[in-house]
């Protein structure tokens, strides 16, 4: 009976042996020291319920840990885009250098100079309530100024309903106030829920 128990334990533990640091148990009399060694190795090395053991090397390269599992996930931008150029043709696509969380960037539907619509991959999780906006878009122009006239780009409107996922960006001449086609970069933060 005792030998059968030892055998079961040995086979069970042998199956658990996933690392070279474990002693490979064999059939036959089981030494307590070997068993203790293996238990100690698992208990003292593995992560969970025993303090802050997890280090970078424990995390798979392709782990893909979701941002919402981080503390304060709202500190991670939800979207950004770098625009190289936009034309004034109504609803024409802008030239996107790179982006994340953005589906498209187009000139506005009326073909105005300097007005662009940035469509986010998804709408905000909740609507903007007066005094408690859930989305913060930040935009700036980029590119050398023409003469001494700087171009200013700002995100003027932002999603205010669950179903709205468009940020409007406007660029204008700082000196004249004239809407002007220009390259811009945009970052969007959102209060995640």
């Amino acid at each position, binding site marked *: 009976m005792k030998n059968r128990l030892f055998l079961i334990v040995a086979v069970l533990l042998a199956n658990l042996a996933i690392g070279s640091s474990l002693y490979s148990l064999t059939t036959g009399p089981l030494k307590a020291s070997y068993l203790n060694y293996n238990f100690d190795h698992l208990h003292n090395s593995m992560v*969970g319920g025993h303090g802050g053991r997890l280090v970078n090397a424990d995390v798979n390269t392709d782990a893909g840990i979701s941002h919402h599992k981080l503390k304060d996930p709202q500190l991670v931008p939800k979207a950004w885009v770098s625009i190289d150029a936009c034309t004034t043709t109504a609803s024409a696509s802008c030239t996107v250098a790179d982006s994340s969380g953005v589906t498209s960037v187009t000139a506005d539907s009326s073909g105005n100079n300097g007005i662009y619509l940035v469509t986010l991959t998804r709408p905000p999780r909740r609507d903007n309530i007066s005094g408690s906006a859930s989305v913060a878009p930040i935009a*700036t*122009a980029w590119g050398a100024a023409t003469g001494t006239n*700087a171009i200013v780009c700002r995100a003027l409107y932002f999603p205010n309903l669950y179903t709205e996922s468009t940020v409007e960006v406007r660029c204008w001449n700082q000196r004249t106030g004239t809407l002007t086609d220009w390259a811009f970069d945009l970052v969007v933060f959102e209060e995640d829920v």
Partner: protein
Amino acid sequence: MKRAFIGCMLLSGLAWAGALYRFRDGTPMAAAQVNANLKHIHDNMVGQHGARLVDGDVSADAGIAHSKLRNQEKVPVAWGYFGTCITTAAGTDCTNQNAQGLSNAEASPGSAGADGYYTVYFSSARPNTNYAVIVTPTGGSYAVCYATAKFTTYIEISCQEVTGFVDRAFSVLVMDSP
């Protein structure tokens, strides 16, 4: 019966202490003792058994790489605050700096003595120039600051008012794909 009693006592003890039972050579090993140890490990350790990992399990010095996050490109690759940039001489470092992923900012070498021209250097070169850079003045009135040109190793930035280029403190945020 006796063994079962010992096993129950052992299990309750383990549950309270969170410790492993120590086996001794020459002493009969009860299945309950082995099971208790296995159960303790199985029920506490992380991996393939649901979302058990909590903040307390992560080492304070873990330093988990951003590349292991989902959509790592949404984590800024650089930011900086450059509090005092006076372009008295080309290549003069801005002072009162605080930055990550950016080594320093200086008066633009190509615009010696001219106000409002700066070069901000990356700590490590970017793979291309497709990154997004948000720039804003952090002091003074009426000025705007913006990137005038993007390079893999640095960004050229200017600050100006309607009356011309001016020296301003500014902040920078850079987003990029890996």
